[in-house]
C-alpha cells in the first residue's frame, strides 16, 4: 500500500528529480565500464521518455547533466562523481535494458527508480569461480603462446595465487595500483620456478604469461571506442588508466626478476 502511494506520487516527476536520477544513472553506467556512446544514448532515450531535454558532458571523473523542461523551460544542472565500481557487463546490460523499458513505456518513473536501486546492489559473481576461471584462462593463454603442459600448470598456480592476492587486497580497500604491483610480483616470482628449477621447455613463456591476467584490456578497448566516437578526453583518461595499471604490473614483474636475479639473456 505504502509502495503504491510512493509510486503514484512520483509518477509525474519534475525536471529536478529526473535530472538527479539520470545523472546518477549515467555515473553508474560510466563506472561499470560502459562506453561514452552507450551512456549518451541510454540517457537521451530515457530523458525523451520523461519529456525533458538533457545535455550531457562526460568527463573522466564527473558527469555534468543539464535538463530542460519542454513545457515551462525550467532547467537544472547537476554534477555527479563517476561511481568507481568494478567493471560489470551484467550491470551494463541491465541498465541498458532499463533505459529501453522506460523509452517503450514498460516502466514508469517510480518503477525505474526501484529497478535502478536493485541494479546498483547487484551481487558480484562468485569470487572462487572467477578465481578458477581466470587461472584456467591464463593457462590457456600460455598454451596459445606455445607453452608446454608444465608451463601451463605453473601459470595456473601462479595466476591462482596472484589473483587471490588481488582479490584479498581489493577487499581490504588497498590502492589498486599497489594491488597490481603486488599481484604481478607474486605471480612472476612463482612462475620463475620454471627458470630456477628447469621445469619444462618453455620457462620464458611461463614467466611472460603469468602476469597477463592483469593486463587492463577493457579500459584500452573502451578508450578506442570513445576515441572513434569523438570523446577524446574520456578516451585519453581511460587510456592513461590502462597505462598506469600496465606500468604497475610491469613494475611488479621487473622487481620479481631483479630480486631472483634471473638471467634473461
Amino acid at each position, binding site marked *: 500500500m505504502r509502495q503504491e502511494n510512493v509510486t503514484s506520487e512520483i509518477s509525474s516527476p519534475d525536471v529536478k528529480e529526473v535530472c538527479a536520477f539520470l545523472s546518477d544513472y549515467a555515473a553508474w553506467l560510466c563506472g561499470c565500464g560502459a562506453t561514452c556512446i552507450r551512456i549518451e544514448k541510454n540517457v537521451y532515450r530515457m530523458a525523451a521518455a520523461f519529456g525533458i531535454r538533457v545535455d550531457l558532458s562526460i568527463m573522466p571523473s564527473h558527469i555534468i547533466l543539464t535538463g530542460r523542461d519542454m513545457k515551462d523551460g525550467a532547467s537544472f544542472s547537476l554534477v555527479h562523481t563517476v561511481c568507481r565500481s568494478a567493471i560489470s557487463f551484467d550491470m551494463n546490460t541491465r541498465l541498458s535494458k532499463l533505459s529501453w523499458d522506460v523509452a517503450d513505456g514498460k516502466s514508469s518513473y517510480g518503477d525505474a527508480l526501484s529497478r535502478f536501486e536493485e541494479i546498483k546492489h547487484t551481487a558480484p559473481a562468485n569470487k572462487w569461480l572467477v578465481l578458477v576461471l581466470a587461472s584456467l584462462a591464463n593457462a590457456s593463454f600460455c598454451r*596459445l603462446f606455445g607453452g608446454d603442459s608444465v608451463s601451463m600448470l605453473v601459470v595456473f598456480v601462479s595466476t591462482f595465487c596472484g589473483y587471490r592476492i588481488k582479490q584479498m587486497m581489493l577487499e581490504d580497500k588497498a590502492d589498486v595500483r599497489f594491488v597490481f604491483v603486488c599481484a604481478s610480483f607474486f605471480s612472476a616470482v612463482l612462475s620463475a620456478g620454471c627458470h630456477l628449477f628447469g621445469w619444462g621447455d618453455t620457462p620464458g613463456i611461463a614467466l611472460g604469461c603469468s*602476469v597477463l591476467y592483469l593486463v587492463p*584490456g577493457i579500459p584500452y578497448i573502451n578508450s578506442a571506442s570513445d576515441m572513434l566516437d569523438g570523446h577524446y578526453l574520456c578516451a585519453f583518461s581511460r587510456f592513461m588508466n590502462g597505462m598506469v595499471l600496465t606500468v604497475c604490473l610491469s613494475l611488479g614483474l621487473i622487481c620479481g626478476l631483479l630480486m631472483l636475479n634471473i638471467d634473461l639473456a
Partner: protein
Amino acid sequence: MIMGIMTDLLQDGFFAAVAAIGFAAISNPPRRAYPCCALLAAVGHALRFGLMHNDLMSIHIIAASTLAAFSIGVLAVWLANLAKCPAETCFFPALLPMIPGMYAYRAIEALVMCLYHQEEEVFNHCLYLLAYNGFTCTFIILGLVVGANIPVFLFKKMSFKVTR
C-alpha cells in the same frame, strides 16, 4: 596435411574460447553472454592463426589481428541480438586472448636487459628489442580495438537496440 591444419585450428580455437570465458568472468557478464564470448574468441583467434600460418600468403600479425578483430566485431553485433546483451559484452572478452602478451613481455624483458647491460653494443641490441616488441605490441592492440569497434559504429542502430 589438411587434418593437421584443422587440428591446429581447432586446438587454437578451443584454448582461445577457454581463455575468453575466464577473462569474461573477471568483468562479470550476464551468464547468457558466456557462449557468445567463447564462440567469438574461438572464431577470431582461429582466423588469425589461419591467416598467419598458411602456405598461400602468411599475413603479418598486425594485419591478421585487425582482420580477425573486425570479424569478431561483425559477429558480435549479430550474436548480441540473440543473447540480448550489448555487443561490447560479447566482443570485449573475445578480444582479450588476442592481446599480444608475449610482445609486451619481451618489451619489458628488453627493458630489464637494458638496465642490466652497460656495453654499447649489447645495450643497443636490447634497445632495438624494446622498440621492436613495444611497437608491434602497440599496433596490434590498436588494430584489435579499432577493428572490433568499426562494425559497432557501422551498424549503430542494430548495436544499441539489442537490449530492447
